């Protein structure tokens, strides 16, 4: 690796350019020597793409930002440079690609957002997202669908499952909007009322539960469709 030593994020010196040691005006590119800068550990996917921390993102804006940053970091534009820059370009472009992939999908984005250690984000224990009742419900649904498939009502079973998924997804997208709205209000206020904070917390817990529930529905969908594809290929 390069000679430069890795510094801890948060260290004051880390806002200096790795190459010319000048102070960085912007995080991605040194204004003095025009070298790309490695992403600091504490930059999350929103920071990397230069987007505000929001659950709802316009897909056009997201793509635009992704392309803009790709033009900065993609290895193709650094192929003739020194190995340190090629290394930075490779690592940054990789993280950028991951960031885009995560934020592009609203459900991955919501899960990522909730996992960020934002002040006010409730620490949600992943194991407790689904209640016992949720799990019972899912089991029942699965058994019913399997029963329908067993008597040849494949299409009917799939249609029902698909409806479940769709309904859940639109309710997830709705809560994402609501949370964004409430949080932009909180940011403006210096001291949010405990009532608002409480509500926000509840909404986030609910969103977290819904995302988990959706994952289960999708795994049921995969399981239901597997035997069918096996039949197809044999």
């Amino acid at each position: 690796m390069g000679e430069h030593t890795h510094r801890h994020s948060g260290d004051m010196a880390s806002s200096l350019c790795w190459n010319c040691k000048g102070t960085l005006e912007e995080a991605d590119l040194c204004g003095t020597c025009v070298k790309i800068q490695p992403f600091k550990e504490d930059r999350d996917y929103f920071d990397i793409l230069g987007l505000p921390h929001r659950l709802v993102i316009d897909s056009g804006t997201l793509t635009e930002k992704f392309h803009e940053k790709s033009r900065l970091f993609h290895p193709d534009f650094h192929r003739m440079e020194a190995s340190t820059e090629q290394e930075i370009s490779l690592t940054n472009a990789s993280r950028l690609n991951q960031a885009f992939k995560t934020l592009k999908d609203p459900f991955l984005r919501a899960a990522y957002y909730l996992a960020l250690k934002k002040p006010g984000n409730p620490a949600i224990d992943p194991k407790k997202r689904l209640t016992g009742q949720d799990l019972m419900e899912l089991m029942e649904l699965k058994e019913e669908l399997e029963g329908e498939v067993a008597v040849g009502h494949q299409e009917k079973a799939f249609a029902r499952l698909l409806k479940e998924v769709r309904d859940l997804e639109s309710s997830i997208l709705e809560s994402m909007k609501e949370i964004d709205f409430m949080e932009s209000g909180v940011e403006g206020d210096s001291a949010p009322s405990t009532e608002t904070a409480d509500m926000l917390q509840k909404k986030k817990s609910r969103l977290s539960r819904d995302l988990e529930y959706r994952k289960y529905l999708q795994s049921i969908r995969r399981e239901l469709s597997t035997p069918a594809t096996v039949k197809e290929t044999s």
Partner: protein
Amino acid sequence: MTRTVIGIDLGTTNSLVAIMEDGKLRVIPDTEGRKLLPSVVALSSSGVQVGFAAKSRLNDPETIVVYSAKRLMGRSFSDVEQEIGQLAYPVENVDGLPLIPDPFRKRHLSAPQIGAMILSELRKRAEVALGQTVTDAVITVPAYFNDAQRQATKDAGEMAGLNVLRILNEPTSAALAYGFGAGKDGLYAVYDLGGGTFDFSLLSIRRGVFEVKATSGDTHLGGDDFDQAIIDQWLGILPKGVDQSRPEVRDLLRKEAEKAKIALSQNTEVAVSVPAIGLETTLSRETMNKWVEPLVQRTLIPVHKALSDAGVLPGEVDGVILVGGATRLLRVKEAVEELFRRPVYDEHDPDLVVGEGAAVQGDILSGSRKDMLLLDVTPLSLGIETMGGVMSSLIPRNTTIPTQAKELFTTFLDGQVKVDIHVLQGEREMAKDNRSLARFSLTDITPMTAGAARIEVTFTIDANGILDVRALDQRTGRSQGVVVHPSYGISKDTVREMIKESFQHAQEDFQTRMLIDSRTEATTVINATRRALEKLGPDILPDEERSMINKQLDTLEKAVKGEDAKLIRDETSALDQVTRPLAERLMNTSVQDALGGKSLPEPEREA
């Protein structure tokens, strides 16, 4: 100043080299104006030939003619065992690798070495055209090539003395060549059916950014298989006495099948006649379409897979780009149009467009343009083998590259100093059903209690789609030793050996060429001088001078029969010395046309 980066399409049947020159694409032809180079290498006692010269020796029993070597690239012997039967040249199993024996030079050649010979030829073409040495290159591969096949192609480039800046996917390359300037932004599909491979890619183009959404394909499906489908039918009508297993019979059938197939792109029916094996029949387009229909349908499987991976319906695609010689088959084009019902782009020559795109990418890499950017994906999922022989996926297919995945490893036993990681590529659940890429060993782990070690392994797929693995001991922050044992293909050491060897051979080849060149030159001079001597009387050429010249002519003729290129050149200039006074006299008496052939001819260029 920026360096010229050449773009090379290393095809199964044909290859070519292209460059960007003053913003214009140019495919570099050979001295006879031919743009394509047959991907064929001929091995015989008289030397190694590449391209057209090699192809012309296809039926020479004294020569081993190697074609379609791309099908062997980065594969194990057992991978290709089935199709070796269809090849008319020998392939042997040497330590699990499919190698081609070269008995004339007592060696075995790997697919990358054959590829290197083709690449060297193209490199020479470019050097002659540009009048300077060329080292930087972009080489294209089918998008569906796995890590081993990509690595093998890169190795081939290095063996040819090239600095391979990028391994580029063929369909993406074609899209780059189409360029699609302003106003053409949208979602495009590339359907690429070549000689031996099929690729399908979906990409969105937006203000010069080419973003691949999904890619899929079949590395063993192409025009060759269409020929085979026709051959299979003809075998049924061959007269009883013909031995169908003889390579010559297969060669004849293959040539005739391809000829008929190509003719049917123009005509609705062709007459087929191969008297040597008693094949007399006619073939209609309709019949051929029926025979190849299963293959056409097979191409649609990857098409649907990519569409569903990208979550796109056929009707949402703005246009389909047709690439590869086999898309000239009318039924193929028709099937694509039926599925998409969208405009089909085929105005760029489907044989050249991939190589042209490689030149565009070369231009981007050389730093001379920033208006275009390619964001490609990895075609296959990458994972590691976990407990119970299950593959655990780390990087799913169609992930934009470059990409990295980190995974934490630890020890299972007290004092364990080594951890093995088995890396796989493929979509199946069980490790054994996927392609094994390599086994990586984390070595020299400090002995500790079980589970105490914390080794962070980073799997990187670079912009070439090639894997790199690095490990870090999290407790010490030091990098951890990784030893790679590739499952197929060739180890780094062997590649280095081969590069060295190929330079030696290049040296040998060079000497052979020098010998041939100096012989040609000497013979031309001898003939011209003899012709002149016949015409000249004693008034201009005194007898003693004539006998001196004759003596040197004899000496030179003797040298030409030998193997010493330097001696031939020395005796040629000695002849030049003794004829010089005569030449000068002739100049003065203005009868120099009598010695018209005297001036040293340009050494003949090897085709």
